[in-house]
């Protein structure tokens, strides 16, 4: 371990902006990708659920008719 304090770690020998900028951009982009994907997965599941209910309703209607 060659960091004696947290502020030294954050300063990165004067290159803090470049180093943390790089890792920050990476985190935002990969994190964003995961969030968008999970949202899409939920949307897909919802559509599947709705069509399931739809077919059930249609079946029900067919029965009572």
């Amino acid at each position, binding site marked *: 371990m060659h960091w004696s304090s947290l502020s030294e770690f954050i300063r990165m020998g004067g290159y803090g902006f*470049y180093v943390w900028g790089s890792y920050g*951009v*990476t985190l935002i982009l990969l994190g964003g990708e995961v969030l968008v994907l999970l949202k899409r*997965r939920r949307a897909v599941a919802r559509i599947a659920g709705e069509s399931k209910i739809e077919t059930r309703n249609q079946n029900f209607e067919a029965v009572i008719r």
Partner: protein
Amino acid sequence: MSKRRINWYKYAAPANFYPLAGKTIPFFTVVTALLFVVGLYIGFFVAPTDFQQGESYRIIFIHVPAAWMGMFLYVLMAVYAGIGWAFNARLASMMATAISTTGAIFTFISLVTGSLWGRPAWGVYWVWDARMTSTLILMFLYIGFISLQASIDDPRRADRAGAVLALVGLINVPIIYFSVQWWNTLHQGATFTARSFKMAPSMLWAMLILMGACWMYSIAVVLVRVRCIIREREREAPWLTEAMA
């Protein structure tokens, strides 16, 4: 060895691939998290300060894996797109589409981190040198592939059009790779070559482990995405409506 032969063609059918992919996603997710933690720990707490570049070199641990992933994923995307086109295999085409987004993101990360490293190392954020220019072209190829597919309504036609673009653009990958040898570039040469490792072992390990993390991440994300694509495209398929009922 068991005598039971695995029928690999079985998994070319979305109906068989879908549940298999679903079962493996948690594994890839856990390995991704582990490798990121270990790789970043080594990169920031074990790897020594570079005698020339100080701490700014630590950008390498994400820059090189991202740049490699951008190229790997492009080749993989083109191969899948080509298989989907040549053999009319729809799952392969869906894989190509699923890969394209992640490949574009990694290429973008490599451009941004490279730019943020270029400023302290060379004094400029950007120069039109061969490697950077060809990587920018890679980014445009991904964007072209994604927007071309998005502009065509019929999925199978979109797959074919994308395949043509992806295969033609494949020529750019060796250009990126060999650009530092073919042209006199500001960008440094290969980080690791077969003959010599110019880096301290802990630096190399941090980079390799994060490379593994990026691979596992890509696999996990692409599998989740391809499952979404399968469900979106095959909504009417009996195997899906039955499975979900």
